[in-house]
Protein backbone atom coordinates (compact mmCIF):
# COMPACT_ATOMS: atom_id res chain seq x y z
CA UNK A 1 0.00 0.00 0.00
CA UNK A 2 0.94 3.60 -0.50
CA UNK A 3 2.93 5.05 2.42
CA UNK A 4 2.71 8.75 3.24
CA UNK A 5 3.54 10.74 6.36
CA UNK A 6 0.86 11.30 8.99
CA UNK A 7 0.70 15.04 8.39
CA UNK A 8 0.34 14.54 4.65
CA UNK A 9 -2.53 12.16 5.29
CA UNK A 10 -4.19 14.92 7.30
CA UNK A 11 -3.56 17.41 4.55
CA UNK A 12 -5.07 15.04 2.01
CA UNK A 13 -8.18 14.55 4.10
CA UNK A 14 -8.70 18.30 4.26
CA UNK A 15 -8.23 18.68 0.52
CA UNK A 16 -10.62 15.86 -0.33
CA UNK A 17 -13.34 16.97 2.02
CA UNK A 18 -13.05 20.62 1.07
CA UNK A 19 -13.44 19.64 -2.56
CA UNK A 20 -16.44 17.54 -1.66
CA UNK A 21 -18.22 20.07 0.56
CA UNK A 22 -17.86 23.77 -0.12
CA UNK A 23 -19.26 24.61 3.31
CA UNK A 24 -16.03 23.50 4.92
CA UNK A 25 -13.49 26.20 5.66
CA UNK A 26 -10.43 26.39 7.87
CA UNK A 27 -9.93 29.31 10.22
CA UNK A 28 -7.07 30.08 12.57
CA UNK A 29 -3.70 31.69 12.99
CA UNK A 30 -1.24 31.06 10.18
CA UNK A 31 -3.31 28.33 8.58
CA UNK A 32 -2.43 29.48 5.07
CA UNK A 33 1.20 28.70 5.80
CA UNK A 34 0.38 25.81 8.13
CA UNK A 35 2.61 25.86 11.20
CA UNK A 36 2.81 22.05 11.26
CA UNK A 37 2.13 21.66 7.50
CA UNK A 38 -1.29 20.15 8.16
CA UNK A 39 -2.97 22.88 6.14
CA UNK A 40 -0.08 23.93 3.91
CA UNK A 41 -0.97 24.46 0.27
CA UNK A 42 -4.73 24.40 0.75
CA UNK A 43 -5.02 28.14 0.27
CA UNK A 44 -3.61 27.79 -3.24
CA UNK A 45 -6.31 25.37 -4.16
CA UNK A 46 -9.28 26.72 -2.22
CA UNK A 47 -8.47 30.41 -1.83
CA UNK A 48 -8.22 32.68 1.20
CA UNK A 49 -11.97 32.63 1.86
CA UNK A 50 -11.76 28.96 2.72
CA UNK A 51 -8.36 28.99 4.42
CA UNK A 52 -8.61 32.05 6.61
CA UNK A 53 -5.69 33.54 8.51
CA UNK A 54 -7.02 35.33 11.58
CA UNK A 55 -5.59 37.87 13.96
CA UNK A 56 -3.94 36.41 17.06
CA UNK A 57 -7.26 35.94 18.84
CA UNK A 58 -8.19 32.50 20.05
CA UNK A 59 -11.61 33.51 21.35
CA UNK A 60 -12.72 34.63 17.92
CA UNK A 61 -11.16 31.67 16.18
CA UNK A 62 -13.38 29.49 18.34
CA UNK A 63 -16.30 31.91 18.26
CA UNK A 64 -16.15 32.47 14.53
CA UNK A 65 -16.23 28.74 13.97
CA UNK A 66 -19.10 28.29 16.42
CA UNK A 67 -21.10 31.13 14.90
CA UNK A 68 -20.51 30.19 11.29
CA UNK A 69 -21.44 26.58 12.01
CA UNK A 70 -24.96 27.75 12.84
CA UNK A 71 -25.18 29.58 9.52
CA UNK A 72 -24.79 26.36 7.57
CA UNK A 73 -21.01 26.09 7.38
CA UNK A 74 -18.68 23.40 8.62
CA UNK A 75 -15.68 25.25 10.00
CA UNK A 76 -12.37 23.86 11.12
CA UNK A 77 -10.99 25.96 13.96
CA UNK A 78 -7.25 25.46 14.04
CA UNK A 79 -5.65 26.35 17.37
CA UNK A 80 -2.10 25.60 16.21
CA UNK A 81 -0.87 24.17 19.51
CA UNK A 82 -3.78 22.51 21.31
CA UNK A 83 -2.52 24.24 24.46
CA UNK A 84 -3.79 27.53 23.06
CA UNK A 85 -7.35 26.25 23.33
CA UNK A 86 -7.08 27.37 26.94
CA UNK A 87 -7.21 30.94 25.64
CA UNK A 88 -10.69 30.17 24.30
CA UNK A 89 -11.83 27.81 27.02
CA UNK A 90 -15.17 29.46 27.63
CA UNK A 91 -15.95 29.32 23.91
CA UNK A 92 -14.91 25.69 23.58
CA UNK A 93 -15.89 24.01 26.82
CA UNK A 94 -18.87 26.09 27.90
CA UNK A 95 -20.27 27.11 24.50
CA UNK A 96 -19.33 24.84 21.62
CA UNK A 97 -19.73 21.70 23.71
CA UNK A 98 -23.07 22.65 25.25
CA UNK A 99 -24.75 24.78 22.59
CA UNK A 100 -26.74 22.06 20.82
CA UNK A 101 -27.91 20.36 24.00
CA UNK A 102 -28.83 23.38 26.03
CA UNK A 103 -30.89 24.89 23.24
CA UNK A 104 -33.02 21.78 23.12
CA UNK A 105 -31.33 20.57 19.96
CA UNK A 106 -32.70 23.45 17.92
CA UNK A 107 -29.32 24.47 16.46
CA UNK A 108 -26.56 22.38 14.95
CA UNK A 109 -22.89 23.13 15.44
CA UNK A 110 -20.77 21.01 13.10
CA UNK A 111 -17.20 22.06 13.83
CA UNK A 112 -13.78 20.47 13.88
CA UNK A 113 -11.56 21.83 16.64
CA UNK A 114 -8.07 21.08 15.47
CA UNK A 115 -4.94 21.17 17.59
CA UNK A 116 -1.43 19.83 17.72
CA UNK A 117 -0.57 17.95 20.89
CA UNK A 118 2.31 16.33 22.63
CA UNK A 119 5.79 16.63 23.96
CA UNK A 120 9.07 15.78 22.41
CA UNK A 121 10.02 19.24 21.20
CA UNK A 122 11.19 20.36 24.64
CA UNK A 123 9.27 23.61 24.34
CA UNK A 124 7.81 23.70 27.80
CA UNK A 125 4.44 23.26 29.43
CA UNK A 126 2.39 25.50 27.17
CA UNK A 127 3.41 23.96 23.86
CA UNK A 128 3.53 20.29 24.80
CA UNK A 129 0.32 19.24 26.48
CA UNK A 130 -2.05 16.45 25.49
CA UNK A 131 -5.21 17.99 26.84
CA UNK A 132 -7.32 14.94 26.13
CA UNK A 133 -8.81 14.42 29.52
CA UNK A 134 -10.34 17.86 29.82
CA UNK A 135 -11.97 17.41 26.43
CA UNK A 136 -13.16 13.91 27.21
CA UNK A 137 -14.50 15.18 30.52
CA UNK A 138 -16.68 17.70 28.71
CA UNK A 139 -19.96 16.27 27.45
CA UNK A 140 -20.78 17.37 23.94
CA UNK A 141 -17.35 17.12 22.36
CA UNK A 142 -16.25 14.12 20.32
CA UNK A 143 -12.55 13.37 20.54
CA UNK A 144 -10.25 11.88 17.92
CA UNK A 145 -6.62 10.94 18.66
CA UNK A 146 -5.13 9.20 15.63
CA UNK A 147 -1.90 7.28 16.03
CA UNK A 148 -0.94 6.66 12.40
CA UNK A 149 -1.34 8.09 8.93
CA UNK A 150 -4.14 5.81 7.80
CA UNK A 151 -6.27 6.52 10.84
CA UNK A 152 -5.43 10.21 10.71
CA UNK A 153 -6.90 10.51 7.24
CA UNK A 154 -9.92 8.29 7.63
CA UNK A 155 -10.92 9.79 10.96
CA UNK A 156 -10.50 13.37 9.83
CA UNK A 157 -12.77 12.71 6.89
CA UNK A 158 -15.35 11.33 9.29
CA UNK A 159 -14.92 14.34 11.56
CA UNK A 160 -15.60 16.64 8.63
CA UNK A 161 -18.90 14.88 7.99
CA UNK A 162 -20.07 14.76 11.61
CA UNK A 163 -22.84 17.23 12.51
CA UNK A 164 -21.30 17.81 15.96
CA UNK A 165 -18.23 19.47 17.40
CA UNK A 166 -15.28 17.12 17.06
CA UNK A 167 -11.94 17.78 18.69
CA UNK A 168 -9.15 16.40 16.56
CA UNK A 169 -5.73 16.13 18.21
CA UNK A 170 -2.73 15.23 16.08
CA UNK A 171 0.63 14.56 17.65
CA UNK A 172 3.86 16.48 17.09
CA UNK A 173 6.03 13.39 17.11
CA UNK A 174 3.92 11.58 14.55
CA UNK A 175 3.93 14.33 11.91
CA UNK A 176 6.63 12.81 9.74
CA UNK A 177 5.88 9.16 10.43
CA UNK A 178 4.98 7.33 7.22
CA UNK A 179 2.10 4.91 7.28
CA UNK A 180 -0.20 2.94 4.99
CA UNK A 181 -2.83 5.12 3.41
CA UNK A 182 -5.12 3.50 0.84
CA UNK A 183 -5.55 5.19 -2.49
CA UNK A 184 -8.92 6.72 -3.05
CA UNK A 185 -11.88 7.42 -0.86
CA UNK A 186 -12.30 5.88 2.57
CA UNK A 187 -13.50 6.91 5.99
CA UNK A 188 -13.10 5.34 9.41
CA UNK A 189 -16.12 5.32 11.71
CA UNK A 190 -15.89 6.87 15.17
CA UNK A 191 -16.08 4.60 18.17
CA UNK A 192 -14.30 1.60 16.68
CA UNK A 193 -11.10 0.65 18.45
CA UNK A 194 -8.39 -0.97 16.41
CA UNK A 195 -6.36 -3.91 17.64
CA UNK A 196 -3.01 -2.77 16.29
CA UNK A 197 -1.31 -5.99 17.33
CA UNK A 198 -2.80 -9.18 18.68
CA UNK A 199 -1.44 -10.85 21.79
CA UNK A 200 -2.60 -12.99 24.68
CA UNK A 201 -0.76 -12.13 27.88
CA UNK A 202 -1.23 -8.42 28.42
CA UNK A 203 -3.53 -5.82 26.90
CA UNK A 204 -1.95 -2.43 26.32
CA UNK A 205 -4.48 0.26 25.57
CA UNK A 206 -2.62 3.19 24.10
CA UNK A 207 -3.51 6.47 22.44
CA UNK A 208 -1.85 8.66 19.83
CA UNK A 209 1.96 8.60 19.98
CA UNK A 210 1.85 6.08 22.82
CA UNK A 211 0.52 3.52 20.34
CA UNK A 212 3.80 3.66 18.45
CA UNK A 213 5.72 3.24 21.69
CA UNK A 214 3.49 0.35 22.69
CA UNK A 215 4.03 -1.40 19.38
CA UNK A 216 7.78 -1.01 19.70
CA UNK A 217 7.74 -2.41 23.21
CA UNK A 218 5.45 -5.25 22.17
CA UNK A 219 7.94 -6.16 19.48
CA UNK A 220 10.80 -6.02 21.95
CA UNK A 221 8.95 -8.41 24.24
CA UNK A 222 8.09 -10.88 21.51
CA UNK A 223 8.79 -14.40 22.63
CA UNK A 224 8.69 -13.32 26.27
CA UNK A 225 5.34 -11.65 26.82
CA UNK A 226 2.64 -11.64 24.19
CA UNK A 227 1.24 -8.13 24.14
CA UNK A 228 -2.01 -7.05 22.54
CA UNK A 229 -2.07 -3.37 21.58
CA UNK A 230 -5.48 -1.75 21.35
CA UNK A 231 -5.89 1.79 20.03
CA UNK A 232 -9.30 3.32 20.81
CA UNK A 233 -8.67 5.91 18.02
CA UNK A 234 -11.58 7.98 19.27
CA UNK A 235 -12.05 8.56 22.98
CA UNK A 236 -15.55 9.93 22.46
CA UNK A 237 -17.32 7.86 21.29
CA UNK A 238 -15.38 5.19 23.14
CA UNK A 239 -15.34 1.56 22.12
CA UNK A 240 -15.26 -0.12 25.49
CA UNK A 241 -16.50 -3.40 24.04
CA UNK A 242 -13.39 -4.14 22.01
CA UNK A 243 -11.33 -3.35 25.07
CA UNK A 244 -13.37 -5.56 27.35
CA UNK A 245 -13.00 -8.38 24.87
CA UNK A 246 -9.24 -8.02 24.98
CA UNK A 247 -9.22 -7.82 28.77
CA UNK A 248 -11.31 -10.94 29.04
CA UNK A 249 -8.65 -12.68 27.00
CA UNK A 250 -5.57 -11.39 28.81
CA UNK A 251 -6.74 -10.47 32.30
CA UNK A 252 -3.89 -8.00 32.55
CA UNK A 253 -4.02 -4.39 31.48
CA UNK A 254 -1.70 -1.46 30.93
CA UNK A 255 -3.08 1.88 29.76
CA UNK A 256 -0.72 4.40 28.19
CA UNK A 257 -1.58 7.97 27.41
CA UNK A 258 0.56 11.12 27.38
CA UNK A 259 -1.80 13.41 29.28
CA UNK A 260 -1.22 14.06 32.98
CA UNK A 261 -2.02 11.03 35.10
CA UNK A 262 -4.34 12.49 37.72
CA UNK A 263 -7.95 12.68 36.50
CA UNK A 264 -6.58 11.67 33.14
CA UNK A 265 -7.53 9.39 30.32
CA UNK A 266 -5.80 6.35 31.76
CA UNK A 267 -7.75 6.33 35.01
CA UNK A 268 -11.04 6.75 33.19
CA UNK A 269 -10.37 3.83 30.90
CA UNK A 270 -9.27 1.76 33.87
CA UNK A 271 -12.45 2.60 35.74
CA UNK A 272 -14.62 1.65 32.78
CA UNK A 273 -12.82 -1.68 32.61
CA UNK A 274 -13.38 -2.18 36.32
CA UNK A 275 -17.06 -1.44 35.80
CA UNK A 276 -17.45 -3.88 32.92
CA UNK A 277 -14.86 -6.58 33.49
CA UNK A 278 -13.87 -6.54 37.14
CA UNK A 279 -13.97 -10.28 37.40
CA UNK A 280 -11.65 -10.74 34.45
CA UNK A 281 -8.85 -8.76 36.03
CA UNK A 282 -5.99 -10.87 37.32
CA UNK A 283 -3.95 -7.89 38.47
CA UNK A 284 -4.55 -4.23 39.20
CA UNK A 285 -4.52 -2.14 36.04
CA UNK A 286 -1.33 -0.16 35.48
CA UNK A 287 -1.46 3.31 34.06
CA UNK A 288 1.35 4.99 32.19
CA UNK A 289 0.92 8.74 31.85
CA UNK A 290 2.67 12.04 32.40
CA UNK A 291 3.79 12.72 35.96
CA UNK A 292 1.60 15.03 38.00
CA UNK A 293 3.86 17.96 37.14
CA UNK A 294 3.82 20.72 34.55
CA UNK A 295 5.75 19.58 31.49
CA UNK A 296 9.23 20.93 32.08
CA UNK A 297 11.17 22.35 29.15
CA UNK A 298 14.67 21.58 27.95
CA UNK A 299 16.31 18.37 29.09
CA UNK A 300 13.85 18.05 31.94
CA UNK A 301 10.92 17.23 29.68
CA UNK A 302 11.76 13.54 29.49
CA UNK A 303 11.43 13.15 33.24
CA UNK A 304 7.84 14.30 33.15
CA UNK A 305 6.52 12.57 30.05
CA UNK A 306 5.93 8.84 29.75
CA UNK A 307 8.01 6.79 27.34
CA UNK A 308 8.63 3.26 26.13
CA UNK A 309 10.52 2.39 29.30
CA UNK A 310 7.49 3.16 31.39
CA UNK A 311 5.29 1.00 29.20
CA UNK A 312 7.78 -1.82 29.39
CA UNK A 313 7.98 -1.60 33.16
CA UNK A 314 4.21 -1.57 33.48
CA UNK A 315 3.80 -4.59 31.23
CA UNK A 316 6.38 -6.49 33.21
CA UNK A 317 4.70 -5.49 36.45
CA UNK A 318 1.23 -6.72 35.44
CA UNK A 319 2.61 -9.80 33.78
CA UNK A 320 4.34 -10.85 37.00
CA UNK A 321 1.38 -10.42 39.31
Amino acid at each position, binding site marked *: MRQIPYVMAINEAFAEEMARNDKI*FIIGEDVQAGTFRATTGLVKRFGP*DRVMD*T*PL*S*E*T*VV*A*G*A*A*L*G*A*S*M*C*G*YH*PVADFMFADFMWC*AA*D*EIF*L*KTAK*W*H*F*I*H*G*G*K*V*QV*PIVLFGNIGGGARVGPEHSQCPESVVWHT*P*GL*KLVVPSCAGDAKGLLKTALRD*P*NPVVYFYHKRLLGLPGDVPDGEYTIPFGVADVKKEGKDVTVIATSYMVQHALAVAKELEGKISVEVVDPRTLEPFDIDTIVKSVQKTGRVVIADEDTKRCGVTGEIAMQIMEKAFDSLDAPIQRVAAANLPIAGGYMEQYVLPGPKDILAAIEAVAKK
Partner: protein
Amino acid sequence: MKLGKKELIMLYTNLLRARRADERIVKALQEGKVVSFYHSGQGSEAVGVGACSFLRNDDYLYPHHRGHGLAYILPKGASMKAHMAEHFGRATGMAGGVAGFHGVDPEHGIFGGGGTIGSQFPVSAGWGLGAKKNNRGQVVLCCFGDGSSNRGTLHEAMNLAAVWKLPIVWICENNLYAQFMPIKDAYPREDIADLAHGYNMPGVVVDGQDVIAVHEAVSAAVERARNGAGPSLIECKTYRYRSHSEGSADIAHAEPRPAEEIEAWKKRDPIKLFQEHLLKEGILTTADVERIEKEVMAEVDEAEKFALESPRPDPSILPKLLYQE
Protein backbone atom coordinates in the same frame (compact mmCIF):
# COMPACT_ATOMS: atom_id res chain seq x y z
CA MET B 1 -36.30 54.85 6.91
CA LYS B 2 -38.96 57.38 7.83
CA LEU B 3 -41.57 55.78 10.03
CA GLY B 4 -45.27 55.96 9.22
CA LYS B 5 -48.14 55.64 11.61
CA LYS B 6 -48.23 51.87 11.35
CA GLU B 7 -44.57 51.54 12.22
CA LEU B 8 -44.82 53.99 15.11
CA ILE B 9 -47.70 52.09 16.63
CA MET B 10 -45.81 48.86 16.16
CA LEU B 11 -42.90 50.32 18.09
CA TYR B 12 -45.19 51.44 20.85
CA THR B 13 -46.86 48.05 20.99
CA ASN B 14 -43.53 46.27 21.13
CA LEU B 15 -42.43 48.46 24.03
CA LEU B 16 -45.55 47.55 25.88
CA ARG B 17 -45.27 43.86 25.04
CA ALA B 18 -41.76 43.74 26.44
CA ARG B 19 -42.75 45.60 29.59
CA ARG B 20 -45.89 43.65 30.38
CA ALA B 21 -44.30 40.30 29.68
CA ASP B 22 -41.40 41.23 31.93
CA GLU B 23 -43.74 42.30 34.71
CA ARG B 24 -45.61 39.04 34.38
CA ILE B 25 -42.46 36.96 34.66
CA VAL B 26 -41.40 38.86 37.75
CA LYS B 27 -44.78 38.15 39.28
CA ALA B 28 -44.67 34.52 38.22
CA LEU B 29 -41.24 34.18 39.78
CA GLN B 30 -42.55 35.54 43.05
CA GLU B 31 -45.35 32.98 42.80
CA GLY B 32 -42.84 30.18 42.31
CA LYS B 33 -43.73 29.47 38.71
CA VAL B 34 -40.36 30.41 37.20
CA VAL B 35 -37.85 27.60 37.63
CA SER B 36 -34.65 29.55 37.02
CA PHE B 37 -33.49 33.08 37.79
CA TYR B 38 -34.61 36.28 36.09
CA HIS B 39 -32.99 39.57 35.16
CA SER B 40 -35.73 42.11 34.60
CA GLY B 41 -35.45 44.50 31.68
CA GLN B 42 -37.90 47.10 32.92
CA GLY B 43 -36.76 50.61 32.09
CA SER B 44 -34.57 49.84 29.09
CA GLU B 45 -37.07 48.45 26.59
CA ALA B 46 -36.49 51.20 24.06
CA VAL B 47 -33.06 49.77 23.29
CA GLY B 48 -34.18 46.35 22.13
CA VAL B 49 -37.40 47.56 20.59
CA GLY B 50 -35.75 50.44 18.75
CA ALA B 51 -32.99 48.17 17.50
CA CYS B 52 -34.94 45.09 16.47
CA SER B 53 -38.38 46.11 15.21
CA PHE B 54 -37.38 46.52 11.58
CA LEU B 55 -34.80 43.85 11.04
CA ARG B 56 -35.09 41.30 8.31
CA ASN B 57 -36.28 37.90 9.35
CA ASP B 58 -32.98 36.38 8.30
CA ASP B 59 -30.83 38.89 10.17
CA TYR B 60 -29.05 37.33 13.13
CA LEU B 61 -29.64 38.57 16.66
CA TYR B 62 -27.82 38.04 19.94
CA PRO B 63 -30.17 39.73 22.44
CA HIS B 64 -28.91 41.36 25.61
CA HIS B 65 -29.76 39.33 28.72
CA ARG B 66 -32.11 41.87 30.36
CA GLY B 67 -35.61 40.46 30.30
CA HIS B 68 -33.78 37.42 29.02
CA GLY B 69 -34.03 39.09 25.66
CA LEU B 70 -37.72 40.10 25.63
CA ALA B 71 -37.31 43.63 24.27
CA TYR B 72 -35.09 42.28 21.50
CA ILE B 73 -36.61 38.98 20.50
CA LEU B 74 -40.31 39.89 20.54
CA PRO B 75 -39.80 42.62 17.89
CA LYS B 76 -37.62 40.18 15.96
CA GLY B 77 -40.59 37.83 15.68
CA ALA B 78 -40.05 35.37 18.51
CA SER B 79 -43.02 34.04 20.43
CA MET B 80 -43.92 35.38 23.85
CA LYS B 81 -45.51 32.05 24.62
CA ALA B 82 -42.33 30.14 23.98
CA HIS B 83 -40.28 32.63 26.02
CA MET B 84 -42.60 32.30 28.96
CA ALA B 85 -42.85 28.52 28.62
CA GLU B 86 -39.06 28.23 28.75
CA HIS B 87 -39.02 30.15 32.01
CA PHE B 88 -41.70 27.88 33.36
CA GLY B 89 -39.55 24.89 32.40
CA ARG B 90 -41.92 23.53 29.77
CA ALA B 91 -41.35 21.39 26.69
CA THR B 92 -42.95 24.11 24.57
CA GLY B 93 -40.28 26.59 25.65
CA MET B 94 -37.88 28.19 23.24
CA ALA B 95 -35.19 25.67 24.18
CA GLY B 96 -37.65 22.87 24.83
CA GLY B 97 -37.46 23.56 28.56
CA VAL B 98 -33.89 22.32 28.75
CA ALA B 99 -32.26 25.70 29.33
CA GLY B 100 -34.72 27.46 31.60
CA PHE B 101 -33.89 30.89 30.30
CA HIS B 102 -32.10 30.94 26.93
CA GLY B 103 -34.01 32.31 23.97
CA VAL B 104 -33.58 30.40 20.75
CA ASP B 105 -35.59 30.64 17.57
CA PRO B 106 -33.54 29.83 14.48
CA GLU B 107 -36.37 30.71 12.13
CA HIS B 108 -36.08 34.28 13.30
CA GLY B 109 -32.30 34.36 13.25
CA ILE B 110 -32.02 33.80 17.00
CA PHE B 111 -29.54 31.01 17.53
CA GLY B 112 -29.41 31.05 21.31
CA GLY B 113 -26.95 32.30 23.86
CA GLY B 114 -24.57 31.62 26.67
CA GLY B 115 -24.50 32.16 30.39
CA THR B 116 -21.15 33.88 30.63
CA ILE B 117 -21.25 37.59 30.04
CA GLY B 118 -19.04 38.52 27.11
CA SER B 119 -19.48 35.22 25.34
CA GLN B 120 -21.84 36.91 22.90
CA PHE B 121 -18.99 38.65 21.10
CA PRO B 122 -17.01 35.80 19.55
CA VAL B 123 -20.08 33.85 18.46
CA SER B 124 -21.58 36.99 16.96
CA ALA B 125 -18.39 37.51 15.02
CA GLY B 126 -19.02 34.01 13.70
CA TRP B 127 -22.54 34.88 12.65
CA GLY B 128 -21.09 37.95 10.97
CA LEU B 129 -18.70 35.72 9.10
CA GLY B 130 -21.57 33.43 8.14
CA ALA B 131 -23.60 36.41 6.97
CA LYS B 132 -20.71 37.69 4.92
CA LYS B 133 -20.13 34.29 3.36
CA ASN B 134 -23.84 33.96 2.58
CA ASN B 135 -23.64 37.25 0.72
CA ARG B 136 -27.35 37.94 0.97
CA GLY B 137 -27.13 41.24 2.78
CA GLN B 138 -27.85 39.86 6.23
CA VAL B 139 -26.64 41.74 9.30
CA VAL B 140 -25.91 40.70 12.87
CA LEU B 141 -27.01 42.63 15.93
CA CYS B 142 -24.87 41.79 18.92
CA CYS B 143 -26.32 43.30 22.08
CA PHE B 144 -24.65 43.61 25.44
CA GLY B 145 -24.38 45.69 28.59
CA ASP B 146 -21.92 48.21 29.90
CA GLY B 147 -20.34 45.57 32.12
CA SER B 148 -20.07 43.15 29.23
CA SER B 149 -17.95 45.72 27.43
CA ASN B 150 -15.15 45.06 29.92
CA ARG B 151 -14.64 41.54 28.61
CA GLY B 152 -11.67 41.00 26.32
CA THR B 153 -13.84 39.00 23.97
CA LEU B 154 -15.30 42.33 22.82
CA HIS B 155 -11.87 43.48 21.71
CA GLU B 156 -11.14 40.31 19.77
CA ALA B 157 -14.55 40.32 18.13
CA MET B 158 -14.69 44.04 17.26
CA ASN B 159 -11.20 43.79 15.83
CA LEU B 160 -12.05 40.80 13.64
CA ALA B 161 -15.26 42.44 12.51
CA ALA B 162 -13.45 45.64 11.64
CA VAL B 163 -10.55 44.08 9.81
CA TRP B 164 -12.81 41.72 7.84
CA LYS B 165 -15.62 44.28 7.46
CA LEU B 166 -18.19 41.91 8.90
CA PRO B 167 -21.81 43.14 8.86
CA ILE B 168 -22.23 43.52 12.60
CA VAL B 169 -23.82 46.22 14.71
CA TRP B 170 -22.57 46.16 18.29
CA ILE B 171 -25.26 47.57 20.56
CA CYS B 172 -24.43 48.45 24.13
CA GLU B 173 -27.26 48.80 26.60
CA ASN B 174 -25.46 50.99 29.12
CA ASN B 175 -27.66 50.99 32.19
CA LEU B 176 -24.85 52.37 34.39
CA TYR B 177 -24.38 49.16 36.37
CA ALA B 178 -23.00 45.69 35.95
CA GLN B 179 -24.64 43.74 38.73
CA PHE B 180 -23.45 45.93 41.67
CA MET B 181 -20.65 47.68 39.78
CA PRO B 182 -21.17 51.26 38.58
CA ILE B 183 -19.74 51.66 35.09
CA LYS B 184 -17.92 54.80 36.20
CA ASP B 185 -15.71 52.57 38.35
CA ALA B 186 -15.26 49.99 35.61
CA TYR B 187 -14.36 52.08 32.56
CA PRO B 188 -12.26 55.23 32.43
CA ARG B 189 -14.24 57.24 29.89
CA GLU B 190 -17.73 58.63 29.88
CA ASP B 191 -18.80 56.85 26.70
CA ILE B 192 -18.27 53.22 25.88
CA ALA B 193 -18.82 54.21 22.25
CA ASP B 194 -15.32 55.71 22.40
CA LEU B 195 -13.93 52.19 22.17
CA ALA B 196 -14.92 52.23 18.50
CA HIS B 197 -12.07 54.58 17.64
CA GLY B 198 -9.45 51.89 18.10
CA TYR B 199 -11.19 49.73 15.51
CA ASN B 200 -11.79 52.38 12.91
CA MET B 201 -15.53 52.07 13.16
CA PRO B 202 -18.28 54.56 13.93
CA GLY B 203 -19.07 54.90 17.63
CA VAL B 204 -22.40 56.53 18.34
CA VAL B 205 -24.08 57.53 21.60
CA VAL B 206 -27.86 57.71 21.75
CA ASP B 207 -30.56 58.33 24.29
CA GLY B 208 -31.64 54.83 25.16
CA GLN B 209 -34.98 56.03 26.50
CA ASP B 210 -35.95 57.38 23.10
CA VAL B 211 -37.07 54.51 20.93
CA ILE B 212 -36.94 56.62 17.78
CA ALA B 213 -33.40 57.78 18.46
CA VAL B 214 -32.32 54.19 18.98
CA HIS B 215 -34.13 53.10 15.86
CA GLU B 216 -32.51 55.79 13.75
CA ALA B 217 -28.99 55.15 14.97
CA VAL B 218 -29.33 51.40 14.56
CA SER B 219 -30.95 51.70 11.13
CA ALA B 220 -28.07 53.78 9.86
CA ALA B 221 -25.57 51.25 11.17
CA VAL B 222 -27.58 48.36 9.76
CA GLU B 223 -27.66 49.99 6.34
CA ARG B 224 -23.94 50.55 6.49
CA ALA B 225 -23.35 46.93 7.40
CA ARG B 226 -25.73 45.62 4.71
CA ASN B 227 -23.82 47.63 2.16
CA GLY B 228 -20.55 45.99 3.09
CA ALA B 229 -19.07 48.99 4.88
CA GLY B 230 -18.46 47.02 8.07
CA PRO B 231 -19.37 47.18 11.73
CA SER B 232 -20.48 50.02 14.03
CA LEU B 233 -20.80 50.44 17.75
CA ILE B 234 -23.87 52.08 19.24
CA GLU B 235 -24.15 52.91 22.89
CA CYS B 236 -27.60 53.50 24.34
CA LYS B 237 -27.72 55.31 27.67
CA THR B 238 -30.42 53.73 29.78
CA TYR B 239 -31.27 52.32 33.16
CA ARG B 240 -32.80 49.32 34.88
CA TYR B 241 -35.55 49.85 37.39
CA ARG B 242 -35.30 46.64 39.33
CA SER B 243 -32.37 45.03 41.08
CA HIS B 244 -29.79 43.05 39.09
CA SER B 245 -31.74 39.82 39.34
CA GLU B 246 -34.95 39.06 41.15
CA GLY B 247 -34.14 38.60 44.79
CA SER B 248 -30.75 40.28 44.71
CA ALA B 249 -30.07 43.46 46.66
CA ASP B 250 -30.52 46.73 44.80
CA ILE B 251 -27.09 48.15 45.46
CA ALA B 252 -24.06 49.87 44.01
CA HIS B 253 -20.92 48.20 45.40
CA ALA B 254 -22.28 47.57 48.91
CA GLU B 255 -24.61 50.57 49.31
CA PRO B 256 -28.19 51.10 48.09
CA ARG B 257 -28.53 52.69 44.65
CA PRO B 258 -29.46 56.36 45.13
CA ALA B 259 -33.23 56.77 45.26
CA GLU B 260 -33.01 60.07 43.38
CA GLU B 261 -31.17 58.36 40.56
CA ILE B 262 -33.91 55.78 40.20
CA GLU B 263 -36.63 58.41 40.40
CA ALA B 264 -34.94 60.65 37.83
CA TRP B 265 -34.72 57.79 35.36
CA LYS B 266 -38.31 56.73 35.95
CA LYS B 267 -39.36 60.20 34.87
CA ARG B 268 -37.84 59.34 31.53
CA ASP B 269 -39.59 56.04 31.19
CA PRO B 270 -39.32 54.97 27.55
CA ILE B 271 -42.95 53.92 27.26
CA LYS B 272 -44.27 57.04 28.92
CA LEU B 273 -42.06 59.29 26.79
CA PHE B 274 -43.09 57.61 23.58
CA GLN B 275 -46.76 57.51 24.52
CA GLU B 276 -46.73 61.23 25.27
CA HIS B 277 -45.02 61.88 21.98
CA LEU B 278 -47.51 59.79 20.00
CA LEU B 279 -50.48 61.36 21.76
CA LYS B 280 -49.11 64.83 21.16
CA GLU B 281 -48.48 64.09 17.49
CA GLY B 282 -51.93 62.64 17.13
CA ILE B 283 -50.65 59.24 16.12
CA LEU B 284 -52.37 57.67 19.07
CA THR B 285 -55.58 58.59 20.88
CA THR B 286 -56.21 57.69 24.50
CA ALA B 287 -58.65 55.13 23.21
CA ASP B 288 -55.87 53.56 21.14
CA VAL B 289 -53.69 53.48 24.21
CA GLU B 290 -56.31 51.63 26.16
CA ARG B 291 -56.98 49.22 23.33
CA ILE B 292 -53.31 48.40 22.87
CA GLU B 293 -52.94 47.88 26.59
CA LYS B 294 -55.80 45.40 26.50
CA GLU B 295 -54.44 43.59 23.49
CA VAL B 296 -51.02 43.30 25.03
CA MET B 297 -52.42 42.08 28.33
CA ALA B 298 -54.41 39.50 26.46
CA GLU B 299 -51.25 38.29 24.75
CA VAL B 300 -49.45 38.13 28.09
CA ASP B 301 -52.33 36.28 29.75
CA GLU B 302 -52.44 33.85 26.90
CA ALA B 303 -48.69 33.32 27.04
CA GLU B 304 -48.77 32.57 30.73
CA LYS B 305 -51.71 30.25 30.32
CA PHE B 306 -49.94 28.48 27.50
CA ALA B 307 -46.83 28.10 29.59
CA LEU B 308 -48.68 26.84 32.63
CA GLU B 309 -50.63 24.31 30.64
CA SER B 310 -47.67 22.97 28.74
CA PRO B 311 -46.04 19.76 29.90
CA ARG B 312 -42.58 19.50 31.33
CA PRO B 313 -40.06 17.90 29.02
CA ASP B 314 -39.71 14.14 29.11
CA PRO B 315 -36.34 13.59 30.79
CA SER B 316 -35.64 10.63 28.55
CA ILE B 317 -34.89 13.09 25.75
CA LEU B 318 -31.79 14.35 27.54
CA PRO B 319 -29.25 11.75 26.42
CA LYS B 320 -30.59 12.01 22.88
CA LEU B 321 -30.03 15.75 22.90
CA LEU B 322 -26.30 15.45 23.43
CA TYR B 323 -25.49 14.93 19.79
CA GLN B 324 -27.15 15.71 16.52
CA GLU B 325 -27.74 12.45 14.70
